[in-house]
């Protein structure tokens, strides 16, 4: 116990780590007691509502607020800086003005009395159409890279060499696939919209913010308000959905504080549903044309692709670098990227940024290769992995993917269900199909600091400026402390969600579980060593003979040589023992690691008459290093798959080409999966000692990556026809069948 180095216990020796337990804030959330930013109600609080620009591209000519100001109940009218006369608005929904009032109704009524003149400008929103984007001057080169296995000779012209080399490689390929694949943009669609409830106390700002970045948004508020960062406290006990879009207060959060400062009253400003979808984040679209060549075994020899992608009005999109083709690394490749600028809201990081799209537009091509060969898709994926010594794949090791594919195939009963593409037996108009895809993610631990307090009465609490996005961070922290201190996890108090707590990193990129596990294992180990020294002295034994388990500290196997946890804590003295735990991102550590692999398989039913696709069964096998909170980890995988089913089958942003309007920005039109749409989902965490011993690795991103490609491949297997662009709506399924003459 005096050993102060940090490590995890072996799997068979754990008391809390990796156990299936109920989350500690479950009842609070399920019975409506948990308070979110939207729920905060402060004395004398005003409610503010904002008006979004009805036009996708326009200039603000004038704004007359005089009538709005006279509406009964209206207290304050705020015109946003970016909507001041003369400003250009680049996407529909961008906020023009906010009105703070005594009631919701008065605020909305006030908005209706704003008189605004717009000057209309040219609109472009057709991001799927490369030719149209080029004609409208909205397409720009986003870079590219080419690589050949053979090097040019000293006398060769490099360009000519590459061209000749690609020609040779395609000529020598036994199979050549020309394909087109795409995936439309989707929004984050957080059920709690972005927004803040704020109050001033003198010069100090208290901001309840729906955020994934408790420890980093105080400075952003301070920047926007020209005050000192230490005069801001950001709080977020619970957040209603954070999938990568909630790292900042945003200009409307800062505006809430400005309105509050101007009125001297607390203000709540939350986006409306359609503003949430229009302006608060979306995942870039991506469309790809590819020619790939493979040898007689289906091993890809050459990849040649061009893709176009749109991150909306502010540009950017899915990069070619690192993700095209996804995971697989052909020795010869040429890839180029085109960015399309539209008059739609700007992209934000969306769970596993770029990976789901890259997977959906490239693993489909690999499945088409299998279809062409008349081969089992799983075999073709396996043959392209390479070996651990001669890899053909990035991210996780080929041996991990191989083991996971075999496990998933067993759970899916793949071999029994498999039929060549388009050759399954039909039941009436319904055909079935199988598809798979694989994915990787880093998920290394983020910065995290915590302050662990052990009271002389034995109670334990921790203070950490992290946040729980709903993944069970509170519960995971309690389990780490429980494991380390040998006490039940249920009594441990986890305080998080304030910028006044020890700084922890933002929750993005699957970095939180690693970070908080690091800081808390370290703090608890150090605290236990201190208590252990006191216990050793009291018992007259050597400190390194002590263990903490079952709420006792003592010599292993000698019940008479032990103290209860409470008795041990009594030795601390009058004041609590306080220990800090710190971890800096990137520090090599036996406690955490990065890089996981996962495999997903879908079994679908497709009705050829209606074009409707149904998920029958879905299997996910996921590596995540050492599992901390097993039940919550499984929940996160289920959730990621269901999110993936939504974007594979239902979810898309639909924009009107003429006006640029985002047409389906309400939930009745923005189709998400519902409870009856998910089929049977089987989740298996792949945690052999070889992977577990690496330590804790984040899980948020990886399982959301593969569903699109796996489901698209399953539909292609069912129909014998590729439906090229996700989501696979009934209309698109029928169009693809018609095009192939199979309707």
């Amino acid at each position, binding site marked *: 116990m005096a050993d102060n180095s940090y490590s995890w216990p072996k799997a068979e020796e754990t008391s809390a780590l990796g156990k299936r337990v109920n989350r500690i804030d479950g009842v609070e959330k399920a019975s409506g007691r948990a308070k979110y930013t939207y729920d905060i109600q402060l004395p004398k609080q005003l409610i503010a509502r904002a008006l979004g620009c009805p036009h996708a591209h326009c200039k603000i000519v004038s704004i007359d607020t005089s009538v709005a100001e006279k509406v009964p109940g209206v207290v304050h009218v705020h015109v946003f800086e970016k909507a001041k006369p003369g400003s250009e608005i680049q996407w529909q929904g961008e906020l023009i003005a906010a009105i703070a009032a005594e009631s919701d109704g008065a605020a909305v009524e006030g908005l209706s009395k704003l008189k605004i003149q717009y000057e209309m400008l040219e609109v472009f929103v057709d991001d799927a159409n490369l030719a149209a984007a080029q004609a409208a001057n909205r397409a720009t080169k986003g870079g590219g890279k080419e690589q050949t296995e053979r090097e040019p000779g000293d006398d060769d012209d490099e360009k000519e060499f590459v061209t000749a080399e690609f020609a040779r490689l395609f000529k020598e390929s036994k199979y050549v696939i020309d394909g087109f694949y795409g995936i439309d943009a989707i929004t984050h669609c957080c059920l709690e919209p972005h927004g803040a409830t704020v109050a001033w106390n003198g010069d100090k700002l208290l901001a309840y913010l729906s955020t994934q970045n408790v420890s980093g948004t105080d400075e952003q508020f301070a920047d926007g308000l020209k005050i000192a960062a230490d005069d801001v406290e950001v709080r977020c006990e619970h957040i209603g959905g954070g999938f990568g879009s909630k790292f900042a207060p945003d200009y409307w959060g800062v505006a809430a504080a400005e309105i509050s400062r101007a009125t001297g009253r607390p203000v709540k400003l939350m986006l409306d549903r359609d503003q949430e979808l229009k302006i608060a984040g979306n995942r870039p679209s991506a469309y790809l044309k590819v020619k790939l060549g493979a040898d007689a075994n289906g091993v890809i020899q050459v990849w040649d692709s061009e893709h176009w992608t749109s991150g909306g009005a502010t540009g950017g999109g899915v990069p070619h670098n690192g993700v095209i083709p996804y995971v697989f690394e052909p020795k010869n490749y040429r890839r180029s990227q085109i960015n399309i600028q539209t008059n739609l809201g700007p992209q934000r990081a969306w769970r596993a940024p770029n990976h789901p799209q890259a997977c959906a537009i490239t693993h489909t091509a690999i499945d088409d290769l299998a279809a062409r060969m008349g081969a089992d898709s799983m075999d073709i994926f396996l043959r392209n992995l390479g070996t651990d010594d001669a890899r053909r794949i990035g991210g996780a090791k080929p041996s991990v993917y191989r083991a996971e594919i075999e496990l998933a195939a067993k759970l899916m009963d793949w071999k029994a269900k498999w039929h060549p593409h388009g050759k399954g037996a039909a039941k009436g108009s319904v055909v079935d199909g199988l598809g798979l895809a694989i994915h990787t993610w880093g998920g290394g631990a983020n910065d995290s600091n915590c302050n662990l307090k052990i009271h002389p009465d034995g109670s334990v609490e921790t203070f950490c400026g992290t946040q729980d996005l709903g993944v069970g961070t509170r519960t995971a922290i309690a389990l780490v402390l429980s494991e380390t201190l040998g006490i039940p996890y249920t009594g441990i108090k986890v305080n998080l969600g304030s910028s006044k707590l020890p700084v922890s990193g933002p929750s993005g990129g699957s970095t939180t579980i690693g970070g908080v596990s690091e800081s808390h294992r370290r703090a608890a180990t150090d605290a236990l060593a201190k208590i252990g020294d006191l216990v050793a002295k009291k018992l007259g034994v050597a400190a390194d003979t002590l263990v903490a388990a079952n709420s006792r500290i003592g010599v292993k196997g000698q019940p008479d040589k032990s103290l209860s946890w409470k008795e041990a804590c009594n030795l601390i003295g009058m004041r609590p023992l306080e220990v800090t735990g710190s971890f800096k991102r990137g520090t090599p550590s036996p406690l955490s690691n990065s890089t996981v692999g996962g495999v997903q398989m879908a079994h679908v039913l497709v009705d050829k008459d209606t074009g409707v696709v149904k998920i029958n069964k879905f299997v996910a096998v996921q590596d995540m290093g050492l599992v901390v909170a097993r039940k*919550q980890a499984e929940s996160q995988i289920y959730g990621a798959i269901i999110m993936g089913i939504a974007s594979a089958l239902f979810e898309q942003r639909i924009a009107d080409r003429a006006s640029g309007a985002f047409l389906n920005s309400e939930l009745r039109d923005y189709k998400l999966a519902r409870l009856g749409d998910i089929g049977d989902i089987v989740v298996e965490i792949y945690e052999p000692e070889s992977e577990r011993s690496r330590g804790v690795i984040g899980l948020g991103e990886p399982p959301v990556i593969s569903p699109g490609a796996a489901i698209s491949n399953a539909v292609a297997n069912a129909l014998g026809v590729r439906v090229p662009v996700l989501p696979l709506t009934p209309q698109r399924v029928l169009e693809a069948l018609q095009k192939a003459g199979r309707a």
Partner: protein
Amino acid sequence: MTESTIKGPGDPGFSRRDFLRGSGAVAAATALQTHAAAANQEGQAAGPAIVRGETTITLQVNGESKKVTVEPRTTLLEVLRTQLDLTGAKPISHDGSSGGSTVMIDGKPMSASTLLAVALVGKKIQTVESLGGPKPDAVVKAFVEHDALQCGFCTPGFVMAVRAFLDKHPQATEAEIRGGLNGNICRCGTYANIIQAAIAVVKGGK
């Protein structure tokens, strides 16, 4: 240079109008024209008259009489959340398409965001908070046991939907559960766990 006269797809987002117009709720439609007017820069001159004035009414909420002050346009959701500190029902969508504000009115699940408070005098209003307390309802317990929640923002609405569905179908099969709970949206993807929670409640006979 034009004054905006956008129609149809330019709707910046207040959608209760369409929903309520079709519902025959005349009072609702009138009161909520405020939202509609906000959607139309053109609709300023000839908008309908707005009925103003606050009135105090008594609502029966979770078995208690509660005095609240409302305007004709005040929704039940607004009253619960801003006057009664009952924030379990959530403002996820105006029109009830998310199920996020599900409460029970005389035992029937309804969206509090689509109900006007003045119309509910004399009705029994039950919110999710009534299922909590020191002895939580079986549905709440099953949600926790089956980890049928993540961020938790949709969860109260879902808990109410499941409670109402199982009150009506206490012997529901899995297929019936999958078919009968499609009025609520969860973005985190807790459906698989919710199905298991609902099955467990049926098995437990509660």
